[in-house]
């Protein structure tokens, strides 16, 4: 169903002021707004019929509609494919009030970022609690900072290694699928060729004189010719 058209305001200077590439001199016909509405089917049925009639009379608009439709077909070739997942997760065991405080910081990040953040948090808490059980042994803030940084760096390295391994596995899988697809196409072509050869042989059996086709060189014996027969 067509959508309601919104008539373009004919403000001077709005159209055609950006860039030079692709600009067309539209002297004699200034129905760009209608052309775009027609192209995207945002016109009433009546307006659509009227503009369709216009296209039979205006070569410029007709050419642009055809050209823009080709552009739209080309634009359709760019697909996004898979989309990465974003997730809000509530970790079990955390009281709601604490969760609310942490949620904006942690919970909307991807898994790897949450892993790093939680590791850093855990390491920080552990190191902060260490002095309590050691009597006089105190860890300076700098030392805590260094240890946390090291823990985060280790975790980051581990995550990067995992990511690289997954990437390699993905590439290998893609390559295997690609090879399988090529092989399937090759097998299909080969099967078609064999069908063609079989049908040609059948025709030869029916006395058709198309021996030149056997220049395909498949080593088939010509039907009706004995081993000692001359060519």
């Amino acid at each position, binding site marked *: 169903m067509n959508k309601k058209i919104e008539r373009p305001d004919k403000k001077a200077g709005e159209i055609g002021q950006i*860039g030079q590439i692709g600009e*067309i001199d539209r002297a004699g016909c200034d129905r*760009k707004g209608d052309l775009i509405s027609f192209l995207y089917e945002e016109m009433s049925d009546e307006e659509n019929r009227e503009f369709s009639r216009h296209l039979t009379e205006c070569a410029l608009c007709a050419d642009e509609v055809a050209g823009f439709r080709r552009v739209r077909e080309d634009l359709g070739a760019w697909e996004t494919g898979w*989309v990465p997942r*974003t997730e*809000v997760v*509530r970790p079990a065991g955390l009281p709601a009030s604490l969760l609310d405080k942490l949620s904006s910081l942690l919970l909307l990040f991807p898994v790897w970022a949450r892993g790093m953040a939680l590791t850093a948090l855990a390491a920080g808490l552990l190191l902060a609690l260490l002095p309590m059980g050691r009597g006089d042994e105190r860890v300076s803030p700098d030392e805590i900072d260094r240890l946390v940084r090291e823990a985060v760096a280790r975790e980051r390295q581990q995550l990067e290694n995992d990511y690289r391994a997954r990437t390699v596995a993905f590439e290998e899988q893609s390559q295997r699928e690609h090879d399988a697809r090529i092989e399937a196409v090759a097998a299909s072509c080969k099967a078609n060729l064999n069908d063609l050869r079989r049908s040609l042989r059948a025709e030869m059996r029916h006395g058709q004189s198309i021996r030149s086709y056997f220049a395909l060189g498949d080593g088939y014996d010509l039907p009706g010719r004995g081993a000692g027969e001359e060519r």
Partner: protein
Amino acid sequence: MDPSDDQIIEQTLGGETEAFNLLVRRWERQIYGLSLRLTGREEEARDICQETFIAAYRNLGKFRREASFSSWIYRIAINACHTRQRRQNQRAEIPIVSNEEADSNIELASDDRGRSVPEELERDQRARLVRKALQALPPDLRQVIVMKEYQDLTFAEIGEILDIPVSTVKSRLYTGLGQMRARLERLRGVL
């Protein structure tokens, strides 16, 4: 029956944090697609997608129901794209992605939809040309083309999101498609 966006927002604001996941599931494909087509980079699109939902979650209480949730979240995503663009410009980086990176993006993006190998190759080739032509457009023209072609928004919705009149949406589409046509023809001529 699936809850509406407004119902999910109410649930989230009422303390059901997990309810927000429904909104994420519902809109992540569109937001990622928009970001990818505007930036041309998968990695950047992923980041923008994350930032968009984080910002939406944090500011959910400020969301006014005058506009739809979709318009609101698209606006957040577009602002995130602008912010990144500005940062890149300040660092004097060229925002346009390299051919190699873009090609790899497109290869990753294409998937098997029952097409033959020659059809896939031809489609990949067209996708590369489209990406180049699209990335070469001025951002304001690229925005409206992406929103119209890939997000399937109406002129009025695009106008609302970008806060521009419908007539401007149309004029940008007209100019953008004209430039795309010329660039695509030129790129095909080079091949």
